[in-house]
């Protein structure tokens, strides 16, 4: 048995760092399924677009809701597909956006095939973009410490591969959009 947390528990722990519920924008498949299982909420935006786009969608949301905290949730396979979004976020400097990177070193929805980044140091990658003071491991964070971290910021969570996929989302795009539109009204 691995000592690493599950993806569901890591997402729940990251959300618990915030004093009030942030908007959570999850990548397609694994992150969306586990976000729903961990903490279904109207402020969740379940993205069904291309893998890795959650960080970009979250940046757009953060720009139009500057007084709200936004947490993008990306897998290691997903973020590797949109690594340039870290450069864009660094340049845009949103004061309300953070990224939770959940690293299980496999494509969970694709027969758990290994990711090309499985030996990569994601903490070093995040720190290269945002600096050591804005990129840290989930296991080193407390709510008090997280409250003092300037944004944009990144949390790296090493997680255990799940034996099974998360439960199905059970929501159509129209349902997702309508619920989120209501929850994100200015």
């Amino acid at each position: 048995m691995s000592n690493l947390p599950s993806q569901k528990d890591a997402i729940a722990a990251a959300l618990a760092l915030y004093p009030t519920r942030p908007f959570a924008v999850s990548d397609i498949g694994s992150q969306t399924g586990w976000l729903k299982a961990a903490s279904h909420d109207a402020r969740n935006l379940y993205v069904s677009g291309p893998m890795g786009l959650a960080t970009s969608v979250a940046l757009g949301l953060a720009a139009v809701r500057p007084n709200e905290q936004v947490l993008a949730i990306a897998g290691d396979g997903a973020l590797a597909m949109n690594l340039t979004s870290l450069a864009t976020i660094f340049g845009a400097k949103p004061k309300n956006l953070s990224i939770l990177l959940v690293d299980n070193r496999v494509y969970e929805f694709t027969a758990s095939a290994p990711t090309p980044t499985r030996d990569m140091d994601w903490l070093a990658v995040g720190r290269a973009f945002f600096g050591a003071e804005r990129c840290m491991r989930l296991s080193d964070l407390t709510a008090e410490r997280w409250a003092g971290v300037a944004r944009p910021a990144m949390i790296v969570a090493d997680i255990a591969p799940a034996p099974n996929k998360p439960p199905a989302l059970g929501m159509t795009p129209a349902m997702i959009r309508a619920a989120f539109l209501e929850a994100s009204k200015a």
Partner: protein
Amino acid sequence: MAQAGETLFRSIVAAKPKLVTGVPDGMLAQTIMLCTASPDFPYIACAREEECIGVASGAAMAGERAVVMVQNAGLLNSLGAFATMGLRYGLPFVVIVTNRGALADPNGYDIEKREAFDAGVRPMARVFDFDASHLPDDLIPAAFKWAEAARKPVILALEKRLGAEAAA
């Protein structure tokens, strides 16, 4: 083209978007610089065009107006995002595309981009075509009105046309 860039910028401002995002193309450079300096909305400079579709989708999911500015090759790189975000969720954002490789714009490296745009983009999305040097003042407000009525993104393809610069 400088005047057209200002016209496009004014039209964007008139539509009151909550954000504008893009990746530069020579035909869009002046408008992008004006957007970057604008106090009316943030301009988010993306490293890659597919990100722009994601950024616009994030704004549109919250019910806000967003404008994307990219070249045709960049939109071609972004069709998966355009389809699975813009079309799947019915998001009414406006995409301004410079459709390079026109008869009056014959750079060899642009020709195939234009042919791929015609073959790949037009069958899946509504594209309205315009002479880049003669843009209507109400272009972007009208585009949002159309997209919001249609409940899907709209593409405005701007191109160089023969004789247009002299006429301008």
